C-alpha cells in the first residue's frame, strides 16, 4: 500500500503551509493513486492550508480539480498527470516539471504555470484565468475558450504548438511565442471555426495554416497592450526575456461572431 504523508505548518506571517510527499511507491514501484493524493490535497485545504507543496508527483491525474480558493497556491514538483487543474476556479498552480494532457480543462479562474512542456488539449473550454507554459504544447491548445463579462481566459506558450490551435474559440487570447523555433511555431487549422477571441503567434504563419472562419489581421493598440501584459507576465514567471518586435507578431481573429448565420434555413415545412 502506498500513502502520502503531509505536514501543515503555520508560518510567521500567519499563512498555513502544507507539504505533501507523494514519493512513496508500492513494492512494484507504482506511485500513490490519484484519489488518495487528491483527497489529501482536499484535506489540507480544509485544514486551512493556503500554500501547498506537493513533491514526488508521478503522473497522478486531476490534481486540484475543482479547487476554488483564490488565495491558494499549489507547488508541484514532478510530473502531474492528465487533467491538472480541471474546473479550476481560483487557485494558482505552479509545476516544476512537465504537465500532460488536458491541463486546465474547463478552468474558470486562477493560474497554471508550467516550467516545462504541457502536451495536448491545454486549456480546453477555459472561460477565465491564465495558463503559462514555458516550453511547448501539443495539439488542440485552447479549444473552445470563451469569455464572459470580466472573465477573459489567456494561454501563453513559450515554444511551439501543434495543429488546431484555438479551434472553436469563442473568446480570450492565446499567445505562441515560438522560442527556439525557426519555422512556423503553430501547426495547421489554426482557429478553425473560431467566433471570438484572438490568437497571436510570433513567427511566420502562412495562409494555408488557417482554419475555416479565421483570418490574419493587423495588430492594433489594444492588441499590443494585451501582448505587453501577457509577455511581461511570462517574463516574470520564468525569468526570461522576450523581444517585443511587433512586426514579428501576427494576429489571427475570427471573420464573424456568427459563423453559422445563413447556414441554416428555419422555414417550416
Amino acid at each position, binding site marked *: 500500500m502506498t500513502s502520502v504523508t503531509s505536514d501543515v505548518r503555520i508560518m510567521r506571517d500567519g499563512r498555513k503551509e502544507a507539504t505533501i510527499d507523494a514519493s512513496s511507491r508500492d513494492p512494484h514501484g507504482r506511485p500513490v493513486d*490519484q*484519489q488518495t493524493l*487528491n483527497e489529501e490535497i*482536499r484535506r489540507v485545504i480544509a485544514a486551512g492550508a493556503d500554500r501547498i507543496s506537493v513533491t514526488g508527483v508521478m503522473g497522478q*491525474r*486531476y490534481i486540484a*480539480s*475543482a*479547487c*476554488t480558493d483564490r488565495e491558494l497556491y499549489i507547488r508541484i514538483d514532478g510530473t502531474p498527470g*492528465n*487533467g491538472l487543474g*480541471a*474546473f479550476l*476556479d481560483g487557485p494558482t498552480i505552479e509545476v516544476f516539471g512537465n504537465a500532460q*494532457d*488536458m491541463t486546465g*480543462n*474547463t478552468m*474558470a479562474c486562477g493560474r497554471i504555470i508550467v516550467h516545462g512542456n504541457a502536451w495536448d*488539449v491545454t486549456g*480546453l*473550454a477555459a*472561460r477565465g484565468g491564465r495558463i503559462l507554459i514555458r516550453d511547448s504544447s501539443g495539439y*488542440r491548445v485552447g*479549444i*473552445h475558450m*470563451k*469569455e*464572459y*463579462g470580466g*472573465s477573459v481566459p489567456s494561454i501563453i506558450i513559450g515554444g511551439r504548438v501543434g495543429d488546431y490551435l484555438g*479551434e*472553436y474559440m*469563442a*473568446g480570450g487570447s492565446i499567445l505562441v511565442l515560438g522560442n527556439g523555433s525557426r519555422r512556423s511555431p503553430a501547426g495547421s487549422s489554426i482557429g478553425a*471555426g473560431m*467566433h*471570438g477571441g484572438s490568437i497571436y503567434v510570433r513567427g511566420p504563419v502562412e495562409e494555408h495554416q488557417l482554419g475555416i472562419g479565421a483570418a490574419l489581421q493587423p495588430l492594433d493598440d489594444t492588441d499590443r497592450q494585451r501582448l505587453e501584459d501577457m509577455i511581461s507576465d511570462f517574463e516574470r514567471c520564468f525569468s526570461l526575456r522576450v523581444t517585443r518586435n511587433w512586426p514579428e507578431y501576427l494576429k489571427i481573429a475570427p471573420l464573424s*461572431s*456568427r*459563423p*453559422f*448565420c*445563413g*447556414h*441554416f*434555413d*428555419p*422555414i*417550416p*415545412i
Partner: protein
Amino acid sequence: MSAAERQGSVFRDRFRPFISEDCVRCGRCVKECSFDALVKQEGRIVANGGCVACMRCVEMCPSSAIEVRHAPPQMAPHPTFTGRVRESIIAQAGSGGVLLSSCGTDLPYDVIFDDIVLDAAQVTNPSIDPLREPIETITFVGRRSGRVRLDDGGRLLGGSGPLVAMDMPLMLGHVSLGAVSLNAQEALFMAAEKLNVLAGSGEGGLHPDMYRYADHVNSEVASGRFGVTPEYLRRTAAVEIKIGQGAKPGHGGHLPGEKVTELISSTRMIPMGTDALSPYPHHDIYSIEDLQQLIAVLKESTEYQVPVGVKIAAVHNVGAIASGVVRAGADFITVDGFRGGTGSSPRVIRDHAGIPIEVAIAAVDRRLSQEGLRNRVTLCAGGTIRGSADMIKALALGADVAMVCTAALVAMGCRVCQSCHRGVCAWGIATQRPELTSRLDPEQGARRIVNLFHAWNEELKEVLGAMGIDSVESLVGNRDRLRYLGPNPKLAEIMGIKHIGEGWG
C-alpha cells in the same frame, strides 16, 4: 416581387385558422399569436398566413370560435415527390441552407412500441390488486457492485457507488435553458422535486435561482461546457456527460445569437448575441479511454458524492458503445432513441440518423448482460416515451428508467408544432422573449407534470399488478412478459421477445 422571389410563398399556409360566427372580436387571439398568423382588420379577425397549428389561439379563445384546419396541399398529388419533398426542394433552392426543425421526427416511422403487447396473469400466477397491496416503484440511479455481500450480522455491505433514489422509474430528460425559458425549466425542476425524480439540466448551465432544486437536478456536461463550474458540479444530484442526443446523433449544438439574451449569456457564461456552439465531439474525448478520464475527473471534482453518467444516442453499434461506456466507469447510462425531441436540429439528421429506442434498449441490455456488466449500471432510455405503456415496454425490454421530455412539455402547453427553433413559442416554453415566457406559470406547469407522472406511475402499478409482479425491478428486462405482433418477426428476434401465440415454454 419577381417570379423567383415568389417561389416558396405557398408555404405560408400549411394551416389556416378559421374564425366562426361565435367570434366576439375581443382580439385575444391576435395578442396570443406569436407567429403573427392572425390580424384584426376593420374590426374582424382574419388569417394572415404563417399559422403553425400551435393551438394557442384555439385554446385561449373565450368563445371557442377558432378552428385550425390543415390547408390541403396545392400541388398535384404524387406518391414519391410528396408535397413535403417538393417544398423542401423549393425552399433549399431559394435559401441554400440546411433545413432546420425541432421536436422529434414527424416522418411516419412505425413505432415498435405499438407492435408489442403486454402479458397479464391468469389462474396459475395470480394477479395483484395494486389498490390493496403495496407495489414497489422506487428506482435507484447509480452504480452497483453487481454482487450482494452481507456482514456476519446479515446486514448488507456497501460496495455500490453513490445512488439516487427516485420514487418512480421515470426521469425528466435534458432540456437546456436557452432551448427553453427559465419558467419552463423551473416547472420541470419543481415537478421533479415534488415527484422525487431527477430532471436534466441540459447543457446550458444552471441559473442561480434553480440551485434550490439541486437535490433533483441531473447536471449535464456537454461539449460546449457551458456554465460548467465547480459550483455547478456541487449543486447537483447527478452529473451526466452528453455524448449524443437521439434527435441529432453525432451533431453538436447551435443556439443562434438571437436567443443568447442576457439571462442565457450569464448562465452559459458566454458573450451576449454570439452563437453558442457546442462542438460536435468533446475535444477531450476521442476514445473510450478519454471518456474514462472525463468520467474520472468529474467523480474527483464531485468528491465521489454523486453518480456520473453518460448519455449516448441510439446508433447502429450502440451495444458495443454502451459496453465501453460502462467499462469507462459510468454509473448510469442513458440511451436516447432517434425519435427523441430537440429544440433545433438539422432536419436531415433528425429524420434519418440513429435507430429506434426499442431496439437500442434490447441491444444494450443484451450486450451488457452478455459481458456481465448489466447489473452494475442503471440503464435509462428515452426518445418518444409517450405514455405509461411505452414506459412499461421500455422497462420490460431492459431499461431501469424511462426518460421523458416531450410529454412533459406537452403537459405544460406544448402542442408539438415543431417550431421551437424559431424562438417565438406561443406557450412561453421554447422562447426567451419576456412577453412570451411570462405566459408560463412554473407552478401550474409543474402541477400538470406531477399529475401526468403520478398517473403514469399508477398505471404502471396497475399493469404490474395485472402481471402479478409486486416490484418494478422484477419488470426490468423481463422480456417474457412481452409479445410481438408487428409485421417483422426479425425485429422480435433482435429484441429478444417472442411472437404472439408463443407460450412460456
